[in-house]
């Protein structure tokens, strides 16, 4: 497999994950520091299904997403209700993230391979299918974001109490956002498992969670394609900075700081990357319609 192809697949996988988290963080304003655990759940589910039961790759991805979404309910139900603050959710995700990683390394060693990990998976993830899945993920989450759910999410983010007084069921909406984010992370995890053909619990650590979160915030709030673009940049950046040698991670951190400093709401806050094209389309349409209207 080529190098560029490999990077592109990584980018697609990250896009799938980030699309979900964009709903949770960019729209709902919830701050998760442990989303790698949903990738972990998805990766192991999908890997076990294809390895032991020979399930179809795409079905296994869906199953991975479903298990991750189910797992998210475990932290969602206690921490998203009522008056419990978003920080409680953050701590819960931090803890849950660690817990899943450690559990996967210690339970069901026969099945999951413990710390040795699960290897000998089939190389199902290829560039073509990854791009398709990434595009589908963008479309699905974008649809969700522009539906009434997305507007309600922004409303909850800005003024939760006021929204509740308008009749919004905050708990349900938050839980939905969490489950969507977990689902897409689970799918991404499954793709990752079949790209590396080898998974160990330790790769789903804190830093992965932080990277996903960083992509979302860097990409911009209330946007899907923004975070998707940002994750592409962030995945490619450490690679592109290779010429900096051992300084590259310092420079990477510095770049993040500069972007946050210049555009604190993220690169594409409140707009999609297609905005210029839509604007162009509208403009042409207006131009085309005007003479017609006159006539």
């Amino acid at each position, binding site marked *: 497999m080529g190098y560029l192809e490999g990077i592109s697949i990584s980018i697609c996988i990250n896009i799938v994950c980030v699309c979900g988290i964009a709903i949770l963080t960019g729209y709902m304003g919830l701050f998760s520091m442990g989303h790698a655990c949903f990738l972990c759940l998805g990766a192991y589910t999908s890997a076990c299904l294809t390895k032991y039961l020979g399930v179809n790759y795409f079905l296994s991805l869906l199953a991975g997403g479903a298990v991750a979404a189910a797992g998210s309910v475990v932290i969602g139900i206690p921490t998203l209700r009522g008056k419990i603050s978003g920080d409680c959710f953050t701590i819960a995700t931090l803890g849950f993230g660690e817990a899943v990683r450690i559990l996967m390394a210690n339970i069901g060693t026969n099945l999951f391979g413990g710390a040795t990990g699960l290897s000998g998976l089939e190389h199902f993830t290829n560039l073509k299918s990854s791009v398709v899945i990434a595009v589908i993920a963008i479309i699905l989450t974008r*649809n969700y974001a522009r*539906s*009434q*759910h997305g*507007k309600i999410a922004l409303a909850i983010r800005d003024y939760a109490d006021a929204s509740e007084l308008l009749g919004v069921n905050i708990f349900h909406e938050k839980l939905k956002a969490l489950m*969507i984010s977990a689902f897409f992370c689970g799918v991404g995890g499954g793709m990752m498992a079949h790209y590396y053909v080898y998974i160990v619990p330790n790769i789903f650590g804190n830093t992965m969670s932080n990277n996903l979160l960083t992509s979302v915030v860097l990409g911009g709030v209330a946007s899907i394609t923004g975070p998707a673009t940002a994750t592409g940049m962030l995945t490619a950046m450490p690679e592109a900075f290779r010429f900096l040698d051992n300084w590259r991670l310092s420079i990477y951190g510095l770049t993040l700081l500069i972007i946050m400093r210049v555009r604190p709401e993220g690169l594409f806050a409140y707009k999609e990357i297609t905005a210029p094209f839509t604007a162009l389309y509208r403009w042409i349409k207006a131009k085309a319609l005007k003479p017609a209207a006159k006539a």
Partner: protein
Amino acid sequence: MAILEIKNLSVTFGGIKAVQNVTLSVDNGEFVGLIGPNGAGKTTVFNAVTGVIKPSGGEVVFDGQVLNGMRPDKIAHLGIARTFQNIRIYPKLTARENVEIGVASIPKYDTISAMLRLPHVRRWDKEVKEISEKYLGQIGLMEYKDVKAGSLPYGIQRKLEIARALATQPKLLFLDEPAAGMNTAEGLELVDFLKQVHEMTGITIILIEHHLEVVMNVCSRINVLNLGQLLFTGSPEEVQKNPEVIKAYLGERRK
């Protein structure tokens, strides 16, 4: 017929009695005022009725249902809407989208169809959009429908909040200081606007207001709160003549 009955309502914050034994009732279709000096507990009464805070005693009955212990969103669906003393419109949503939250606080489709954007989702979204525009039109905000609410002028934001509250199709509307931060001329304009809304919809409205000229102009009956207790209830003329009310207000001014 009373649509809202508050019986012996008490609210305590960390030992301080913000509201004590308040009993009042509001008839269907009435336009009632709730006045009182700062810290009299007016907003606290609103908060207790709408479920934001838990009352420490007493009972709230709305339309034959006891509201105590009910979640705010459930209360909202029973038909109580409100606006807020500190404006709570969503600044990053457009005026129309703000109203849409009121029209459809619970989407009528499930998550998966929303993601797939199935035909019934589109249809329903379009319907919500049309209804929202209808409300905006009623209030006279059509020209602002695609403007981000955060960048609207203050007075328009107040109106938008009322439009959003009306969009939940309430039987009872609480208005919390809609004229705050307005001068007299703007206040009088608001009086016309509120009268218009009341006539148009016929719903029950309870108004908290500091601008007495606004309250006296629109309300048929006024409740006066002082130090968490109900001081007096009566018509605007009676309120203006009542020595206790005058004392409470003058007393405040002297401070």
